[in-house]
């Protein structure tokens, strides 16, 4: 089976029902995408499929087809995406485990809504749980990244 991840075509030999999450982690050794719930409930495994935020833990690899998958490893070459920089400026992460998924959800939001309102941020990010409670800083970082892109 062939899938395209971060611009590269990869061949994997797995059962078609294998969730993309485990293909990324166990087959392709891309472990920035995290396992949190296995049921699409927490967002730790969020990746982009053709630019849209998807939960890789409930996405069978057979459903990927020709779509372009982007993971946290492919968001920027060197951590320089405006969201990654804003995350650093606000010292957002605590344990850090959910943050790949948070950043990927935020990036998908900004791609379609360059200047989201607080309400829109809450709605778009409600699928991503942070048990450490970094939400106030996530909001602030998204606002900063949005403003940085505008100017």
């Amino acid at each position, binding site marked *: 089976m062939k899938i395209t991840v971060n611009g590269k075509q990869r061949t994997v030999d797995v059962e078609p029902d*294998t969730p993309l999450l485990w293909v990324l982690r166990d087959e392709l050794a891309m472990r920035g995408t995290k396992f949190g719930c*296995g049921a699409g409930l927490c967002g730790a495994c969020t990746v982009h499929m053709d630019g849209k935020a998807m939960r890789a833990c409930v996405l069978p690899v057979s459903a990927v087809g020709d779509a372009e998958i982007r993971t946290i490893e492919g968001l920027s070459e060197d951590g320089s995406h405006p969201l990654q920089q804003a995350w650093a400026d606000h010292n957002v992460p605590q344990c850090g485990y959910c943050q790949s998924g948070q950043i990927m959800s935020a990036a998908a939001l900004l791609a379609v809504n360059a200047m989201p309102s607080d309400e829109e941020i809450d709605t778009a990010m*409600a699928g991503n749980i942070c048990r450490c409670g970094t939400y106030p800083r996530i909001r602030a970082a998204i606002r900063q990244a949005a403003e940085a892109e505008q100017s």
Partner: protein
Amino acid sequence: MTVLEKISRRDFLKATGVSSSGLLIGAALPTTLRADVLQRPSGDALNLFVSLREDGTVEIIAHRSEMGTGIRTSLPQVVADEMEADWDRVTVIQGLASADYGSQNTDGSRSVRNFYTVMRQMGAAARSMLESSAAQRWDVPVSECRASNHRVVHSDGRSIGFGELATSAAEQPLPALDSLPLKSAADFRYIGKDVPSVDLADMTTGATTYGVDVALPGMLYASIERRPVMGTSIESFSADAAKKVRGVVAVEVIKGTDPNGFKPIEGVAVIADKTWSAIKGRQALAATWTDSAHNSHSADVYLDELMDAVSSKPGVVARERGDVDAALAAGKRVSASYRTPYLAHASMEPPMATAYVTEQGCEVWACTQTPQATQQTVAEVLGLAPEKVTVNVTLLGGGFGRKSKPDFSAEAALLSRAVGKPVQVVWTREDDIRHDYFHSCCAQHYEASIDESGAVTGWLARQATPPIDTTWDASADLMSDGSLSQTFGSIPFAIPNLRLEGHRAPAHARIGWLRSVYNIPFGFGVGSFVDELAHAADKDPAAFWIELIGEDRLLDFAPEGFEFSNYGKPLSEYPYDTARFKGVIRELTETIPWGESLPAGQGWGIAAARSFLSYVAVACKVSVEGDQLKVLEMHSVIDAGLVVNPDRVHAQMEGAMIFGLSLALMGEITFEGGEPQQSNFHDYPVARINQVPRVIRNTITASDAPPAGVGEPGVPPVAPAIANAVFAATGKRHRTLPLNKAYRV
């Protein structure tokens, strides 16, 4: 100060190269674990925690586990400050499990408070050795040499970089730690500053290594079907069906014990070449289980029984002064009972451990809060000497007390031995929630008397709580004074007559520590009842708290028959200071528009607690419209003594308020037929971003008192502050958690 003596002796051994406990078996290097997470300082060690390379790189050991508090940054920043090292040239290295470091148990909010002075001494020792070495090189008195920002400077102006002194400094004798001069606070370069987390860049790029990210060559993955009810054993299962799943290589039984302590509970493991194969193979097991005495456990029925006991029957007295019965008979009587449920930890990363057992011993990689207990437990289950077990600590995707238990590492070790390969045990979210060491359910009852002036004259409190001690002793059923020291037994109120009692409550589930532990239910009971009394006395709740605490004094509970544990610290070092308790309440009410008039359906609530040696007050503003409850604002003040990294303290307090909001609004594990009824975030919800107020603000009280705990103390006052705010908004008093029983949240 046994820790200091031990460290200073070990330092000497380390500095002279006599001792070496670093051990890596074979070539089993994980492919994703950064090398600097694994190595220990070698010949260039200045002491146990600090080594210096010839290129000037300073390596500082983080011997505590990073689960989000920022401890991998905070303690090294203390070392670097005293050493006069340039933070930009510091690399933090994660220490292996080793008794050399003293306790590595990253729990009890004690990393900074127990190691602040030790870390300063380690930094100062390194600085002193660098100064001595420069003095020797220049042949001048050491008093003329001073370390400053990664160089040693002579009074005549010449200077030399740390790196050039690396070899000769390591040959200097270790100075006597107790007589080392430490910097004055005015000269602090990093202590008290917002140094960014050392793991920050990796965390924003997905480059970090948590327990689940460890990958060894030839590693297999295991998913374990565990007994559903405490006390049950495996009856039957189909290994053949599991082995038909592609990739499954073995099915192994893990035997359990009761009580299981830190050891695994009984289960059947499916071991496969990939995680998904293991999970699918496990689904095919069709395991059945024997009956158990706990098969009838219902949390609701059990809590009904406990509530009945505490509200109607005298219990075992834990603390008493005056004659509370006479006081209650004489005054205006107020009574209330509070009910709080079991909770699960639900850290974002479930427990995950990898082990590789070879003829030489066992090496473990795990997201553990307790590396030494992991080493001990793995050694026990394998029948090895502890020194044959090496434990590498990965980053932890949250911990909250769950990862203080090394059961999952023991599982990995047993399975690796069985198959002769490295094995990673993957706990699913369902495993995590259904087989947690649960936060205990709790029943409380309070009665108080108020005289004509509105003063409280008597306080009677009873609790019934299955104790954590049941982890090791199945017959334990009464809370110890140590456990009751968490708020219930240590109330600071100047009430002339009081009696605190406990009822027996046997455990029907595994009980464990959850962030701030018993301060959660008792903080809710005490924090709510004080508010009830304030309203009964027709007084402002914040002013009433201060009045109830009474005059400035240092508390001693011994005369009232109560053995106050004070979180393991002597009262001489960390007194229970009522002035500081009142101080955070006053500071909080000055921070917010306390007393403002609000629209109908809105209200402010306040509560406070001393836990883990810190004093915290929390105020929440809520709105109730119809059956919709919203928390609009949360504010806290913490007096944690001296603070090393203010930004990380603010982060912990923000997180603690949201953790408290989760449990207050929606946290509940129920049991029916002995089985937990929740399994994932759909039925065990935790706060999401759209449920969190836009305004969450923490204030740190300026203090030069010794550092106190930070990770946990923010949690206890949150639930009562919210419930008190709901009362202010609606006139409805809620004495049962969570509040989503009464409202949409």
